[in-house]
């Protein structure tokens, strides 16, 4: 009994039945064609024999694919190829079968045959060129694999051919595109380097800020300007603001606020540099632009400190030049006046020597007149330099104008009509009355000169309220003002002239007829009084100059005119005056005048000795002191020390020019007055009478 028979023997009847059924089913399926392949065991292992229909899908795939496919014998004779392979060669498929394939590899034939000899079941491949029927060479890769078969079957090799034409073309295009890109990058880098060089040459720092989140980037020069030795990694608006000095921050923030809406910004500000902490002036310019991620602002910073210093030096030089011009011009006037004084004094001396005392009075008048004109000239100079000390009073400007009417009428002559329009209920204002009178006279004379053939001069007052916009336009605080306008119907001014009218030394008058200081002095006075001056002019129609003066709610004082002659001596009996001056002649003169008027006087040559006298004598009623004193204590310091001892002490400063140390903001403390040299004894007496009434 064979082993198979033994195995069958061991099975049950049911198992045998099942096996039989399975065998019959298998036979039926094969007989009916319900199978794709049969598997046959053999000495080379299990062999799969497919039926023809099972190969159909692969055939379809091979014919459809974009690669050429072929099978060849070991000697290279073509057994099969797909249509695509024939197309690659530009030939009919039928003409290729049976031909040696090496023929189509041109000069690569022997290399292909070598590859073919080594093609195993693991497969191999290389790049070749196929010769198209037209002679054109087609770049391809060829993959070869040996088909497994039994020992009796002849060796057969499958090949797949991929056309490289397009991919090579693509790769060439890519190479060209890369080269193009690289060249563009080089160009751009060159441009950027050039731009950087230009910015560096201009000493400009570059910055760029994101307006939404506030961060940004900067150039090396920018960081250098802000005092950083090394290039900063990050920059932000906040960091910039930290450098801006506290006083400028609000303005800078405002400028950047504008930058969010305006196309560009430009401003100057001061920064504190990192490292040495130096304050530097910066000019900042920027342009805004939008990005998909929000608005940005980009621009440059320039350190303007040196330019500003140079500018300041230039301004100083111009000032010195102006002073030189002024001095030269005034020296001439002064010499004339001094000539009058000295000449008169010599005449007086001669007449007295001759005993002709009665004739002296004439020369005294001449000398006095010249001296007064010289005094007025120095006043004008002080007004110009805005160093004059104002003694403001609350006044009714209408009353002042009425008081001046006569004088103005006489000054302008009969060919010009004068109209005075005083506003009813005009507010009072706090000004220095003589200065305002001077300004009004000056403006009236200017108006007269503008109307050589006659016309009308109108002086008008009014109340005005300036709102924020109007005040801003006039560089004033918003609020209530009175105006004093002087209008003529004269030749008018061109815009160029009007714009320079307030410049010192600017004059349209012929040489010798005007100093060019009038309007600039009035401007200085108006500004110092908290007001403004405005000029409206039209060529051939006339000019209106308007003074704005701030309203003061208090009741006006009565105007006293200095032009009125002073009434006799003062009642000085019983009053004690301390006179402090380092110049003995002045001390002596003042003391003599006082003594004549019945005052008792004490004298001191400097501050400390004056203080000692003050401490010893409690009865002193008035201190008259020079401002510039030797001994380490000036007149103002002396006054402060005296006030500490005697708060109600009256003090009169005598000074060649009103120094800031005396007057602080340009106005005097209560109980203090200033008398500017030169002054006449009459004025001195009157002033003392005012300060010590009764």
């Amino acid at each position, binding site marked *: 009994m064979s082993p198979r028979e033994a195995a069958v023997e061991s099975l049950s009847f049911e198992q045998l039945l099942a096996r039989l059924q399975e065998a019959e*089913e298998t036979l039926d399926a094969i007989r009916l064609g319900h*199978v794709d392949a049969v598997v046959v065991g053999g000495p080379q*292992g299990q062999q*799969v024999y497919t039926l023809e229909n*099972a190969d159909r*899908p692969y055939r379809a795939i091979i014919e459809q694919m974009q690669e050429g496919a072929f099978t060849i014998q070991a000697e290279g004779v073509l057994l099969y190829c797909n249509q695509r392979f024939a197309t690659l060669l530009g030939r009919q498929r039928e003409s290729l079968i049976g031909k040696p394939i090496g023929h189509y590899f041109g000069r690569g034939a022997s290399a292909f045959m070598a590859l073919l000899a080594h093609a195993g079941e693991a497969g191999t491949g290389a790049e070749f060129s196929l010769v198209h029927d037209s002679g054109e060479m087609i770049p391809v890769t060829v993959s070869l694999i040996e088909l497994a078969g039994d020992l009796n079957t002849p060796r057969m090799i499958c090949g797949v051919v991929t056309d490289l034409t397009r991919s090579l073309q693509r790769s060439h295009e890519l190479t060209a595109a890369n080269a193009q890109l690289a060249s563009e990058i080089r160009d751009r880098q060159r441009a950027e380097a050039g731009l950087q060089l230009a910015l560096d040459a201009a000493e400009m720092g570059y910055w760029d800020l994101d307006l939404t989140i506030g961060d940004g980037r900067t150039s090396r020069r920018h960081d250098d300007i802000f005092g950083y030795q090394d290039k900063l990694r990050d920059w932000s608006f906040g960091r910039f603001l930290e450098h801006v000095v506290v006083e400028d921050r609000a303005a800078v923030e405002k400028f950047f606020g504008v930058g969010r809406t305006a196309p560009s910004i430009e401003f100057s500000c001061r920064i504190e540099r990192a490292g040495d902490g130096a304050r530097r002036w910066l000019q900042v310019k920027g342009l805004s632009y939008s990005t998909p991620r929000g608005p940005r602002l980009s621009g440059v910073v320039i350190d303007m400190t040196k330019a500003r210093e140079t500018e300041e030096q230039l301004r100083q030089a111009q000032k010195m030049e102006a002073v030189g011009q002024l001095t030269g011009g005034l020296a001439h006037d002064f010499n004339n006046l001094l000539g009058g004084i000295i000449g008169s004094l010599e005449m007086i001396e001669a007449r007295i020597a001759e005993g002709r005392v009665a004739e002296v009075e004439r020369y005294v008048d001449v000398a006095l007149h010249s001296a007064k004109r010289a005094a007025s000239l120095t006043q004008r100079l002080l007004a110009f330099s805005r160093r004059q000390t104002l003694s403001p009073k609350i006044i009714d400007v209408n009353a002042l104008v009425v008081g001046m009417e006569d004088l103005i009428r006489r000054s302008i002559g009969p060919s010009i009509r004068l109209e005075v329009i005083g506003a009813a209920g005009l507010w009072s204002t706090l000004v220095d009355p003589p200065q305002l009178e001077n300004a009004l006279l000056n403006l009236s004379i200017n108006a007269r000169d503008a109307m050589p053939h006659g016309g009308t001069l109108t002086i008008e007052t009014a109340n005005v309220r300036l709102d924020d916009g109007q005040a801003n336009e006039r560089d004033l605080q918003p609020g209530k003002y009175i105006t004093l306008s002087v209008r003529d119907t004269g030749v008018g001014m061109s815009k160029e002239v009007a714009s320079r009218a307030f410049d010192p030394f600017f004059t349209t008058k012929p040489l010798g007829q005007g100093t060019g200081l009038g309007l600039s002095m009035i401007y200085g006075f108006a500004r110092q009084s908290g007001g403004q001056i405005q000029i409206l002019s039209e060529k051939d129609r006339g000019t209106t100059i308007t003074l704005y003066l701030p309203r003061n709610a208090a009741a006006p004082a009565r105007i006293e005119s200095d032009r009125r002659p002073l009434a006799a001596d003062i009642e000085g009996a019983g009053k004690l005056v301390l006179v402090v001056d380092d110049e003995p002649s002045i001390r002596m003169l003042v003391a003599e005048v006082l003594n004549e008027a019945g005052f008792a006087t004490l004298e001191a040559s400097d501050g400390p000795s004056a203080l000692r006298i003050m401490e010893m004598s409690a009865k002193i009623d008035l201190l008259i002191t020079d401002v510039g004193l030797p001994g380490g204590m000036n007149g103002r310091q002396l006054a402060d020390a005296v006030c500490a001892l005697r708060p109600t002490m009256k003090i009169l400063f005598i000074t060649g020019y009103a120094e800031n140390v005396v007057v602080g903001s340009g106005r005097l403390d209560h109980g203090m007055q200033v008398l500017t040299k030169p002054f006449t004894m009459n004025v001195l007496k009157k002033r003392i009478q005012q300060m010590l009434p009764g």
Partner: protein
Amino acid sequence: MSDPVDEDLQTQYKLRLFITGSTARSARAIENMRRICHEHLHDRYELVIIDVYENPQATKDLQIIATPTLVKILPEPLRRIIGDLSDKERVLAGLDIRPIEAKKVV
């Protein structure tokens, strides 16, 4: 004592389907087998599909002589069903599975 229905439901099937590449018949056999497994065996089966081109030696152990052939290895006895498995009743009988609908009636 265990419920025979429950026991039947717990039986694990170990199946092998031998096919030949991507022929239409192979595709039909795979499709039919998946449907039968899904409807009647739920997650109680392990089905491995073997392409005899890829793995001719696998046919030897299970004595496959033609494709497509489904082999039930477990539960025993081992059973081979040849063809594209389109006769569902025959397949179910061969696998020794009663249709679920039938069980519900019982």
